[in-house]
């Protein structure tokens, strides 16, 4: 009846019990709070069923932030284990549990933190930046978000019921095959990513179409703000990369569920094929995270230096070059598979070539500061920290692009330090800069600068303490994912320093939460009445803060790159004519579709075939019903717009 699911699935030892109780009581507390304050109806009408990209964006970021806490808890457990599990001591976690934590950390941080923050920021800002009222497919946007949530729920469900994959964040076969991982862990990994991945692909199509089709009059491609350019390139990567992930995961699922032999050891399977395919997705994946972050830095540096961006055309071509190159470097993740000198050298050189456009971007940012008037608000601090850390990460990246060097540091903690250098220093710092920078546009008040500054320093110092020791450990021969080692190796001190670094980062997150609470309490003092708190240059600052649900009462017309800056210099047109605005109605179908997907995923993990069939039937019904629905839009008459604008 319930496939592989029995009561034993709930019992995973005392450490997991802590996580289980935290999750259950956390959920109960939220439910109790919503019931007590009678917010359910409000939540449903204003948020869960909303098709407004700004609200979907906020929900993305909220989910991503909660997942950041989960991912950091995993990181803290890993470092606690490695700081204590030496010689005769074996730490708190068993080897299997440790490997589950490692796998969960990587998977959650990439798919549910970095991706969530990225799609959240895109939803919040990109339509505003191109002078659009909405995205191209508002309903699809809601489906994407809820599939992201469904994937997130499935991966967290693995903590509650059963186990998670212990095969690393990319689950290389044969380890991830049935022969070596017979439990449900890898299945949870597959189906959580499969569901979230489909959501990402739909988002990619949606945002690319939005940028190509919905720009306001006059906004040529070469007049688009750099964040929008970053998003454009990133979405191209999503569209070409995610189908590879879907296909690869599907083949692994067929191996595991129906006994096929795509990637098995033996039976004609070829695990090397999996490694190729997963990185053909995986390398574009990390670049599609960083390109929007590059865009954010371009906006932040230019606005806060009160100066035009230096070398706009170079910046755009650098983004395009990185987009193209990121498809031809995947093999650098496994030079050690032993392809010959020619193959390795080709991919090594292609990888190094990426350093050229990236270097150009750094120089252009620095020359944007040159002869500017730099306002050192928190977003600017994140930028400076990014330059400092990302340069080191770039250099170690070029080092590892030389195949002969890679042989000596591959899969060591040196590699781990390198990619955290890029992803924390590049992506996360970038998204934090963006969140602080655009926060007033979304909520109508500024974030507390002092607490933001504390959070910044904790993150920055914590980052250095957590990852510089890993570079050193890698050179000492420490490989990644070790749950135990010998004291004679002399690694313990550095692991303890790295653990202290994690504590600093946790303190940084604590300050960020405090910053949010304090800023909400002081919102009346910090209210942004102008809609333009930073003396901005791009269109999102031309509308009120918070932006109205229709974004712009009158669609702007653009004649320059820094469109809003130019508008501010010129005289404002006096006679404004409002028009009827058509907007999508709220719908719960995104939520229902994700619910059906979650059911299918859960059923497939536990081999509950009837439930999978029910879920699939439900999913198809929902799609057909929604696809044939009429009257999905409503009209906001011109008089109503005028009234709303008059009040604002």
């Amino acid at each position, binding site marked *: 009846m319930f496939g592989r699911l029995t009561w034993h699935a709930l019992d995973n030892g005392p450490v997991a019990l802590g996580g289980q109780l935290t999750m259950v009581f956390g959920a109960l507390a939220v439910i109790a709070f919503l019931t007590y304050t009678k917010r359910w109806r409000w939540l449903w009408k204003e948020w869960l069923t909303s098709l407004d990209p700004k609200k979907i964006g906020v929900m993305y970021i909220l989910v991503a932030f909660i997942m950041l806490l989960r991912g950091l808890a995993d990181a803290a457990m890993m470092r606690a284990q490695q700081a204590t599990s030496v010689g005769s001591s074996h730490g708190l976690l068993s080897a299997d549990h440790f490997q589950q934590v490692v796998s969960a950390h990587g998977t959650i941080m990439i798919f549910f933190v970095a991706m969530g923050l990225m799609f959240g920021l895109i939803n919040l800002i990109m339509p505003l930046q191109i002078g659009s009222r909405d995205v191209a497919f508002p309903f699809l946007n809601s489906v994407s978000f809820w599939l992201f949530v469904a994937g997130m729920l499935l991966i967290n469900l693995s903590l509650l019921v059963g186990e998670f994959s212990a095969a690393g964040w990319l689950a290389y076969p044969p380890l991830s095959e049935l022969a070596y991982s017979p439990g449900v862990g890898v299945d949870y990994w597959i189906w959580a990513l499969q569901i979230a991945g489909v959501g990402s692909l739909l988002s990619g199509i949606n945002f690319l179409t939005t940028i190509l089709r919905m720009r306001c009059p006059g906004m040529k491609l070469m007049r688009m703000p750099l964040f929008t350019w970053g998003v454009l390139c990133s979405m191209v990567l999503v569209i070409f990369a995610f189908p590879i992930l879907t296909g690869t995961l599907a083949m692994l699922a067929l191996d595991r569920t129906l006994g096929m032999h795509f990637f098995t050891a033996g039976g004609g399977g070829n695990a090397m094929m999996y490694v190729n395919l997963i990185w053909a997705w995986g390398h574009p994946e990390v670049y599609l995270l960083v390109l929007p972050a590059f865009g954010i830095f371009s906006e932040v540096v230019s606005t806060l230096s009160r100066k035009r*961006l230096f070398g706009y055309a170079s910046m755009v071509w650098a983004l395009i070059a990185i987009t193209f190159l990121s498809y031809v470097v995947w093999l650098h993740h496994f030079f050690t598979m032993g392809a010959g000198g020619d193959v390795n050298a080709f991919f090594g050189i292609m990888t190094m070539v990426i350093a050229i456009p990236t270097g150009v971007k750094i120089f252009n940012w620095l020359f944007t500061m040159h002869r500017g008037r730099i*306002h050192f608000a928190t977003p600017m601090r994140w930028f*400076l920290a990014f330059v400092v850390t990302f340069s080191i990460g770039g*250099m170690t990246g070029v080092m590892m692009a030389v195949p002969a*060097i890679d042989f000596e540091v591959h899969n060591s903690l040196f590699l781990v330090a390198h990619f955290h250098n890029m992803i924390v220093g590049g992506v996360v710092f970038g998204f934090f800069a963006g969140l602080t920078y655009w926060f007033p546009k979304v909520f109508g008040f500024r974030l507390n600068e002092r607490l933001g500054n504390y959070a910044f320093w904790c993150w920055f110092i914590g980052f250095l303490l957590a990852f510089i020791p890993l570079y050193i450990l890698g050179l000492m021969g420490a490989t990644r994912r070790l749950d135990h080692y010998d004291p004679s190796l002399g690694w313990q001190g550095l692991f303890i320093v790295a653990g202290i670094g994690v504590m600093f980062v946790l303190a940084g997150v604590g300050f960020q939460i405090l910053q949010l609470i304090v800023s909400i309490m002081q919102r009346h003092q910090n209210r942004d009445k102008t809609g333009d708190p930073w003396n901005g240059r791009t269109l999102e600052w031309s509308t009120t803060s918070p932006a109205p649900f229709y974004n712009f009462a009158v669609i702007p017309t653009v004649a320059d790159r820094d469109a809003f800056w130019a508008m501010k210099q010129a005289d404002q047109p006096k006679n404004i004519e409002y028009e009827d605005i058509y907007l999508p109605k709220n719908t719960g179908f995104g939520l229902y579709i994700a619910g059906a997907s979650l059911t299918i995923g859960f059923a497939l993990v536990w081999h509950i075939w009837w439930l999978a069939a029910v879920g699939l039937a439900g999913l198809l019904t929902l799609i057909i019903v929604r696809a044939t629905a009429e009257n999905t839009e409503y009209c906001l008459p011109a008089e109503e717009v005028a009234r709303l604008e008059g009040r604002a």
Partner: protein
Amino acid sequence: MSKKYKIILISIAVVWFIGIIAWYLHAKNFAVLNPKGIVANRERRLMLITVLLGMIVIIPVYIMTFSFAWRYRESNKKARYEPELAGNAVVETIWWGIPAAIILILSIIAWQSSHSLDPHRQLVSSRTPLTIQVVALDWKWLFIYPEQRIASVNYLRIPVNTPVTFDITADAPMNSFWVPQLGGQIYAMAGMSTQLHLMADTPGSYEGSSANLSGRGFAGMHFTVDATSDSEFNNWLQASRSMPGELDASTYRQLAKPSTDVEPRQYAAVMPNLYQEILLKYMTSGASDVR
């Protein structure tokens, strides 16, 4: 806190940090930076070259970052302010050019070293190479000396200054065979045979491990490589031959079963073609004695 104290505090922190790193460099064994073999030696030299080339970009970036941030701060009204400055063809050409030149140099280095340090490449030496077959098992390393017809688990002994050819496979999930002080790693994969050529140039004991996650007992997959003189190596071979225990098909099947933190041991004899039989296990039509 006044600005002066802040600067003093920050300088103390930086000096302390550099001091710690210097002490570590001195006191600890940086396997990768402390090569004892010809391959590792060349790999370290490449590392140093790339770091030096990288510094050509990083140092100016750091200097510009801090000097621009300081000079063009909001409160410094004396600094020039040109809000409409949006580019300069000459300087932009320079910084497309400089990284491109550095990458060109690095590309040449990468191309040459990819071939000269290709793990498949035989090392040049007047001495006949020793062949060792490496099998990654759940969760230990089996080393077969086919010419000497002995085998060992989680322990390797090699003669110094003699090129060693490692043929590497797995009868388990993918692992990676890595002895940092001798040279780079290569994956061990079931049904496939990869190759690695290494040569120790100094006698000593070097740590080796698996660098790729392979399951529950992964952390225990470490071994010691003793690089010794020829006579000590031959003594060890003699001693091995007098050990009890032979590695035939049935003892191999027993050994291949999952076990963790396995103590090093030797086998006095090993069945012929064991390595090939292990490879055949994963071929669709292959009949293998050890399946």
